[in-house]
């Protein structure tokens, strides 16, 4: 049996052009929003994954609040293991790295062009190398038999400004100058070891992340076991910890810090909030797209129902003349598939244009880059699933309506 001619002319008589145009516009709008949200989310993931540290995460240093009542009270000064476990259990926290501190007084001697500068208010720490940035050199130290090797130290970048203060302002040091200076680390006199010891040090780099002087943990352990008094229980506890956290979940972490009064760098919190807002914007666009999509789906369903109702007499007449219901169903489905395909192609073109003309040139100024195709295959698959779902729902609706026509 051939498909009857004039079927389109008959069934299309139930359509109103203005209504159809509005419906297509709504569909297009929702598809564009969905494609933007999906592609945006994929690009966001791409940026996060491709960045060495990951722009989706950061590290902050937490310390106990300095209070008068906390002075001398171990619980107020040190992080207990239960606290570390509690922080580590937060969904926003990826990992926790306690700092080990020196248990012996330290002095730093700097030979600045023949003028030695000594700082007795000096302490060193060590931490898991996983969070250390700012150096590519070998971050290790060992006590060898043929002498003591230089101790690599990592300084906070602010140390350069601090060094100007230490030298009373009469010497201004550039980063290269400071790196070439001769440094000595001096454990202070103790009752146990009255003889002075000293260690040559070399600056291995400058870190944006830390706010203390870092040394390798092997060296710190040597210091603490060699020059310090026998350790009390609190000597193994940390005063400061580094926390690697997910930027997009900063709100939870921020609330936790506020609840327990931990101190940290406020800039980190603001950066995290910006990242959370960034991610939230994609979710908002996606939700809006989903909402409009549901509206459109409802609209398309209602329009199809309306078309069927308006065309009821025509359809009944067609069926009475011996045309199979599946022929009518296929006519509607072909129309819907064609409509969705056109809308999808236009939506993809719009999103491609937006990304090529607006987004990618805008991102040129940033240190990170969006990797992969302009439009990801995931976006195609996602909208493909949306199309299949919409066609299936409409097909079921039309099928039910056709069955009801002669169901009396």
């Amino acid at each position, binding site marked *: 049996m051939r498909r*009857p*001619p004039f079927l389109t002319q*008959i069934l299309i008589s139930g359509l109103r052009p203005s209504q159809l145009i509005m419906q297509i516009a709504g569909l297009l709008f929702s598809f564009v929003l969905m494609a933007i949200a999906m592609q945006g989310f994929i690009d966001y993931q791409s940026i996060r994954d491709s960045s060495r540290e990951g722009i989706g995460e950061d590290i902050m240093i937490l310390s106990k609040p300095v209070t008068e009542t906390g002075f001398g009270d171990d619980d107020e000064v040190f992080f207990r293991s239960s606290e570390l476990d509690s922080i580590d259990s937060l969904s926003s926290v990826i990992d926790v790295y306690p700092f080990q501190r020196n248990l012996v007084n330290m002095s730093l001697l700097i030979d600045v062009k023949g003028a030695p500068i000594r700082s007795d208010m000096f302490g060193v720490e060590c931490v898991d190398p996983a969070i250390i940035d700012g150096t590519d050199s070998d971050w290790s130290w060992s006590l060898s038999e043929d002498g003591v090797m230089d101790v690599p130290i990592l300084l906070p970048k602010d140390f350069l400004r601090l060094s100007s203060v230490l030298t009373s302002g009469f010497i201004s040091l550039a980063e290269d100058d400071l790196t070439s200076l001769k440094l000595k680390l001096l454990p202070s006199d103790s009752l146990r070891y009255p003889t002075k010891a000293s260690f040559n040090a070399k600056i291995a780099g400058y870190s944006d992340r830390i706010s203390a002087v870092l040394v390798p943990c092997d060296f710190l352990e040597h210091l603490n076991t060699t020059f310090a008094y026998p350790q009390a229980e609190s000597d193994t506890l940390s005063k400061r910890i580094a926390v690697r956290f997910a930027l997009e979940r900063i709100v939870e972490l921020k609330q936790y810090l506020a609840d327990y009064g931990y101190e940290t760098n406020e800039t980190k919190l603001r950066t995290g909030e910006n990242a959370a807002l960034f991610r939230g914007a994609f979710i908002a666009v996606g939700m809006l797209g989903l909402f409009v999509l549901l509206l459109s789906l409802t609209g398309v369903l209602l329009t199809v129902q309306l078309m069927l109702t308006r065309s009821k007499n025509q359809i009944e007449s067609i069926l*009475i*003349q*011996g*045309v199979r219901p599946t022929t009518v169903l296929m006519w509607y489905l072909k129309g819907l598939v064609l409509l969705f395909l056109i809308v999808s192609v236009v939506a993809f073109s719009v999103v491609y244009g937006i990304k090529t003309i607006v987004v990618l040139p805008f991102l040129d100024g940033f240190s990170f880059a969006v990797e992969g195709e302009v439009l990801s295959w995931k976006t195609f698959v996602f909208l493909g699933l949306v199309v299949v779902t919409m066609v299936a729902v409409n097909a079921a609706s039309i099928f039910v309506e056709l069955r009801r026509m002669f169901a009396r």
Partner: protein
Amino acid sequence: MANIVFHDVMPHPLRELGRGEDTLWYGQHTFTQGETYGVFAESGRGKTTALSLIAGIRKDYSGSLIIQGIPSTNWTDNQWSAWRAHSLSILPQGLCLFDNLTALENIEFVSSRFEGSVSRGQIESWAGRLGVQSLLHKKTSILSFGQRQRIALIRALSKPYQWLLLDEPFSHLDKSNQAIVWELVLDDIQSKQAGLIITSLDADNKLIDLTIKKV
């Protein structure tokens, strides 16, 4: 043979009227392919309903309707579609013409989809016999009901069928046109060895011999 058997069939909407012993709604009635039948009654007694039951357009009845030896109660939608497509040709009371098409397009909408349908020349010939040839290329929306009735009849005759169901086909035709239509219908059902069921308000119309069924 595609015979049709009504066995104590009673449409639900007509239950209140009861079963008259001399009507189609009482006992068993067999419609044999190749024969001609008239279903006569006043309005509201179920003439159109009887044709709708045969076409599977309505299914709200009790009793048993057996078509081609098979109880139709459990027929699937596909079986009904195949029955309407290959075995029936219907001229509904409402005609079911599409106003946005011309008369010829309305006819060819049906005739073009079945193997063994009549040719364009045959359609024009029939239109000439019924006096509507000049109207073939006009939209049916501008035709009178009588003209539309004749166009719908040509459409019904243009496809192959085993049963021709005509629902009050003369309601808007004068006597002379009725005679022409009868002659055409008779010629066609004889050539196709088909059965005919025609409904009418007028039981005295004796243009051709009919086995009378009352409802």
